[in-house]
């Protein structure tokens, strides 16, 4: 009984006395502000020092270069290597930010927006590189490239919104157009860059495929900064984002600037994408924005919890994926991160506690079992009842054949159901000359309850919902099983004061049992 009134008052009481959410919110917000403020120098101190010549597996504490593989495991897992440390910190923060932000884009039904926007950043990167080279720089300055990426991402977003609002094309087509045209433009620009002959363009490819292993402390700092910013926005605007995701029209009628909020959300997506380009690459950052959020949805029906789980899954995928990649040099880290996330998704999809496939199958199976049991009890009861009323001799216990004729069930299915009911002590089956069935005490009581419920509901439908009586039985068969005891009491009061109308069933013109 999920809705025990006492249990509920307790819950309300508890809820009024202590609400942990505002506190948690304050803690997260100030933590993010702190992270934002300190992601300059102290973080790099925490990670270690950036050695310009740092090669993979170079460590601060131990500079020996020969180690067995067990040691390698230990080194990676205990974060003893400077490089591993940078990579793991960076990708994990990215995972958290992308996971949390992904929840909102998923619920806004804009999961693929990240896909389009990440592709849309490419021309910006190329043009920024060209401009930097033309003005005398090397073109390798990360902030300039990322700025270019962000600008063209915002441009892509604007174009998507324009196409969606000004033409009759749907959002998915707008995304597809921007994705392919911008990426095409980006490829063309990169082609020009290559033909410039200045040589250094090769590094730009890492934006498409990601180059996690070459991440340095300043990259990790940038990621930390951005991650803190994204989490800060998601927590501060939690209520607003939830509102536009759930019911944008209502939000608009309340005077919330829904377009502005959408733009803020999508700008955060662009920011995460731009930062993620370097870490895991253009295509795989999309996965971090979608997969952990989609996986988290299976575990909970509460948005706050969903955000936490998604952040956790994002972090875990990044951590595990990057570690695996550090251990197995032939496995690119971006891909390993996404594969780990996909594994988490599959596990969640099947085992998820709230919406997972297994739990829903189990619920449905339970429900069907209950429906079958009630069908059997009702059939037996109606037969017994009919005999008592009918002119003939009471043939109790009733025969299996009569029971078979009551419904459109096969003999096999019926015997199986009867066998189950016998095991549960509801009916007794005897095999004298013929198969005979009769109720136990408990079985009779339960059957009476079921029949009563069924008839109440049927009568309710007839009297109140103006449904043609010929349709009633079918509906009642499925709906009665979800009626709770409270509803039954309500129905009783409602119906037995107004009197009992004629029912479509022959047998049910008789007085109801239990009265």
């Amino acid at each position: 009984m999920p809705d025990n009134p006492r249990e509920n008052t307790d819950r309300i009481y508890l809820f009024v006395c202590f609400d942990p959410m505002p506190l948690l919110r304050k803690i997260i917000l100030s933590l993010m502000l702190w992270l934002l403020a300190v992601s300059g120098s102290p973080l790099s101190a925490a990670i270690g020092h950036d050695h310009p010549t740092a090669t993979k597996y170079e460590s601060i504490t131990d500079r020996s270069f020969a180690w067995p593989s067990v040691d390698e495991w230990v080194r990676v897992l205990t974060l003893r290597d400077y490089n591993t440390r940078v990579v793991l910190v960076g990708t994990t923060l990215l995972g958290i930010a992308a996971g949390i932000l992904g929840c909102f884009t998923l619920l806004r039904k804009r999961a693929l927006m990240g896909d389009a926007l990440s592709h849309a950043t490419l021309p910006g990167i190329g043009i920024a590189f060209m401009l930097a080279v033309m003005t005398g720089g090397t073109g390798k300055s990360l902030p300039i490239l990322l700025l270019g990426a962000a600008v063209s991402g915002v441009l892509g977003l604007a174009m998507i919104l324009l196409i969606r609002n000004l033409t009759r094309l749907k959002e998915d087509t707008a995304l597809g157009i921007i994705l392919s045209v911008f990426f095409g433009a980006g490829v063309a620009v990169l082609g020009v860059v290559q033909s410039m002959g200045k040589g250094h363009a090769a590094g730009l490819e890492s934006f498409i495929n990601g180059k996690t292993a070459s991440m340095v402390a300043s990259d990790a700092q940038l990621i930390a900064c951005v991650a803190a910013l994204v989490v800060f926005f998601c927590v501060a605007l939690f209520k607003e984002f939830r509102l536009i995701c759930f019911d944008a029209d209502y939000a608009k009628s309340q005077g919330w600037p829904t377009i502005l909020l959408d733009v803020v959300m999508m700008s955060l997506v662009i920011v995460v994408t731009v930062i993620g380009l370097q870490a895991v690459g253009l295509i795989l950052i999309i996965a971090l924005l979608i997969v952990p959020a989609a996986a988290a949805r299976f575990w909970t029906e509460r948005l706050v919890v969903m955000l936490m789980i998604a952040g956790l899954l994002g972090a875990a995928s990044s951590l595990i994926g990057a570690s695996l990649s550090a251990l197995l040099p032939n496995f690119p880290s971006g891909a390993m991160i996404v594969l780990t996330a996909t594994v988490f998704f599959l596990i969640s999809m099947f085992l998820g506690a709230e919406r997972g496939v297994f739990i829903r199958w189990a619920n449905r199976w339970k429900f069907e079992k209950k429906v079958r049991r009630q069908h059997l009890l009702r059939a037996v009861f109606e037969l017994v009842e009919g005999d008592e009323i009918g002119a003939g001799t009471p043939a109790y216990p009733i025969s299996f054949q009569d029971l078979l004729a009551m419904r459109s069930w096969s003999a096999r299915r019926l015997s199986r159901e009867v066998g189950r009911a016998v095991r549960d002590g509801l009916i007794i089956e005897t095999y004298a000359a013929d198969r005979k069935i009769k109720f136990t005490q408990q079985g009779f009581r339960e059957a009476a309850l079921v029949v009563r419920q069924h008839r109440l509901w049927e009568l309710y439908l007839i009297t109140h919902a103006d449904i043609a009586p010929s349709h009633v039985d079918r509906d009642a068969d499925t709906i009665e099983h979800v009626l709770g005891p409270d509803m039954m009491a309500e129905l009783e009061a409602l119906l037995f004061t107004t009197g009992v109308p004629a029912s479509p069933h022959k047998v049910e013109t008789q007085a109801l049992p239990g009265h």
Partner: protein
Amino acid sequence: MLESLESWSWALDGWIIAAGALCAAASALLGPYLVLRKMSMMGDAISHAVLPGIAIAFLVTESRASLPMFIGAAIVGLLTAIFTEWIRRFGKVDEGASMGVVFTGLFALGLVLVVQAADKVDLDPGCVLYGAIELTPLDTTTVLGYDVPRVVITLGAVALLNLTCVLLFYKELKITSFDPALATTLGISSRLMHYLLMTLVAITAVASFEAVGNILVVAMLIVPAAAAYMLTDRLSVMIFLSVIIGIASAALGHLSAIMVPAIFGFGSTITAGMMALSAGVLFVVAALCGPRHGIIIKLIQRRRFAAKCLGAPH
């Protein structure tokens, strides 16, 4: 600007345009259905997701033989559609998200496999992404005494296959796109049609990307169809226009790949990218100037309507 065309040679540039146009035609035949079924992103998803199919074919056959690669990629492409549908149905995940999960997962798997295969065969992920249409004329076979690029033959065959399917199943595809429930009651399996379409998309993606890269396929699947949708209300006309726009943007793309960078004093650039960009430009033109649904005509109508309302006597 025109000097940059001095090195133009029909033997080379003609074949490049032919390859691009065939790819565009093959994709643009399917595009209208993707757009109308609100599945535009499926083209993108499939063309990314075929990577593991190709990599597995490489690993198994240890060669760049076309047929195994083709089959492997087509199977994985179809699997993408099936997995997406499964996750959407069984996991109750929003369609876009389930697509995202499937294609990024498969793409990541593909990347890992490609790296493993890299020791054995030369396979460049970058090449997969934006192809090497410029090298098309170099790899030829002899057909009826003429030297024809292998790619042109493959793409021609795929374009023909798509054309046949679209002609054969025109009304089935039409009705399943418009009203799948009605189609099912009429005895036309909308699921079968869905997977037929997805198979064709996968085949087109695979055939195209060796030559022109998957970016061009994605662009040609959606952009010409979207442009055509702005110009007409009839499906048959839309498919026809879509093909025309696709072919036009292929030609325009190659020309501008040579000429546009020259304006700024650079050498030529990657043709596939410029073809996608040209398609985008054509789309913008169509979206602005469409006869009934164009942005300009709509603005004018709205203005006129408001004026009429205000001007009405009270």
